[in-house]
């Protein structure tokens, strides 16, 4: 990890250099700063149904700004579905019904007053499989800003550089910004997708198993990137990898669907350190220690 960080010396557009090496499981230093910071989610009684099938019920949680929150749980426990509630991506699927209350910095994001398109500029997402657009590296990053109406070349150039630095990809691609995005490796493509999400200056970035399709070295680079980013954006990450959750997150939420007949629910949520060493619920302990799931 340290070797990789050295490489990135001076590229920390999104972070105050010294914090990078910060312990990933350190929450206290951040909480005093939250008052003025944007990107805080508050969920209460959130339930989701696909048609008649209730998949999530009664989830309530607080997601603090400028930190990493991990959603863990066995396959099919609704982690990704819950994540998609946070930027209303479930709207894109159809036949999905979301109940309850979700606020972003106090504003209801499920109400009519919230335009999902605007919400998604504030809450970006990185998907499980890298999905760069079939265009150049530069155009991939400039895509979001252009949607927001930014046309000035100098401004776009700056955003592209900033975003690529933020995703720790700048040094690798700065000489070939016109190259087609598909020519990048899988790990580079995923960091490109992170950069693409950063370019719209979001308050939150949602990540749905962003490293599950990548090799260990690329995974490491993604995790390092996350560690840097959490000082400027809120990150909510779904992961199947316990070690990953333990390494990179400040809070962990454990979700569980006990049987197919009943919807999934939140078992418990807390500081990652506590969740992984001394969880309140025995089911959390069983899951984390690998007894099921």
């Amino acid at each position, binding site marked *: 990890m340290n070797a990789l960080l050295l490489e990135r010396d001076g590229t920390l557009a999104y972070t105050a250099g010294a914090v990078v090496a910060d312990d990933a499981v350190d929450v206290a230093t951040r909480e005093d700063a939250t008052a003025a910071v944007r990107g805080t989610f508050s969920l209460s009684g959130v339930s989701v149904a696909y048609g008649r099938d209730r998949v999530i019920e009664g989830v309530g949680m607080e997601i603090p700004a400028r930190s990493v929150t991990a959603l863990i749980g066995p396959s099919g426990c609704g982690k990704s579905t819950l994540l998609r509630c946070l*930027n209303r*991506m479930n709207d*894109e699927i159809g036949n999905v019904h979301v109940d309850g209350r979700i606020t972003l910095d106090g504003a209801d994001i499920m109400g009519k007053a919230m335009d999902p*398109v*605007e*919400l*998604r*500029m504030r809450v*970006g*997402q990185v*998907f499980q*499989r890298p*999905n*760069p*657009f*079939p*265009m150049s590296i530069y155009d991939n990053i400039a*895509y*979001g800003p252009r*949607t*927001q109406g930014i046309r000035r070349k100098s401004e776009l150039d700056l955003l592209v550089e900033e975003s690529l630095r933020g995703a720790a990809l700048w040094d690798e691609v700065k000489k070939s910004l016109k190259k*087609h995005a*598909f020519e990048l490796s899988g790990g580079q493509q995923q960091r490109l*997708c992170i950069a*693409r*999400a950063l370019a*719209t200056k979001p308050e939150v970035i949602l990540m749905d198993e962003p490293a599950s399709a990548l090799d260990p070295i690329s995974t490491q680079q993604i995790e390092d990137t996350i560690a840097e980013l959490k000082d400027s954006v809120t990150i909510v990450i779904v992961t199947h990898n316990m070690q990953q959750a333990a390494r990179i997150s400040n809070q962990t939420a454990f979700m569980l669907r006990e049987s197919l007949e009943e919807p999934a629910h939140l078992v418990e949520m807390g500081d990652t350190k506590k969740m992984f060493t001394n969880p309140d619920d025995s089911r959390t302990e069983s899951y984390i220690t690998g007894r099921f799931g």
Partner: protein
Amino acid sequence: MRTPPSDGARRLGRTTTRRAAEAVVRAIIHVCGWLAIVILAAIAIFLAWNSVRAFGEAGLGTMLSGTAWYPTSDPGKFGMLPLILGSLFVTGVALAVSVPVGVAAAVFISEFSGPGVKDVMKSIIEFMAAVPSVVYGLIGVAVVIPLVKDVFALNSGMTALTGGIVLGVMSLPTVISISEDALHAVPFDLRQGSAALGNTRWQTTFKVTVPAAGSGIFAAVMLGLGRAIGETMAVLMLTGNAAVMPTTVLESVRTMTGTIAAEMGEVVQGGLHYSVLFAVGLVLFAITFTINLAADLVLERQRKRWRR
């Protein structure tokens, strides 16, 4: 009493039969595959063989650059340029109709219609493809000819524009269904990625989905073009068939296909005029072959880019 063959022997026997069967099937498939190439080559050779006299007596350069087509005068003038331009004018109009309408329809069907509407539209488009070209010709005679005549205040409604409009409509099914397939094949991941960046469905469609489907849409246009340039019956009925150099699409034209169809019945077999018509066919063949080849090359390059 015979002992039943052992398991191993039975399996071996089955394998041998299967191998034989496979060899036969493979041979048949090989022959069929090569047959396509052989037929194509045979067509080219046949056309060329029958054009030899035309090349010798009228000359290829003279034919291609000649602006006068008077095959029955003495001596006959065989300038193909009016015919080639006629075909290009009609095809150009057809493309101007079928590309915007067809691609827009495909975008609607693929990106904006509900599942019910989509199914209905797709079957209607298939029906459109099944209508014989002579029926399109009839409708053109009854509707489009008077319309063009009135709108542009012409003496005759039989123009390149008339034929082109009807040809454009005729090639719509090809353009729509192949474009729709191409759009449909664009991964959901990409649409999702665009939506997650705060793009509306329209923005996503025009900035990501349509460009991503670009090669397929290009193929659709090329196949539509192929259909339009090769179509005979409708243009014969609608374009007025005057073999003169056209300057605008509001004039009567005669296409290469129309010429062959109209004159072949009246020529002396083996005569010069007969041979010249084969030369026209050869030129048509060369044009469509080039279009297809170009389309293939572009598609192949795009495909390589998509491959990850």
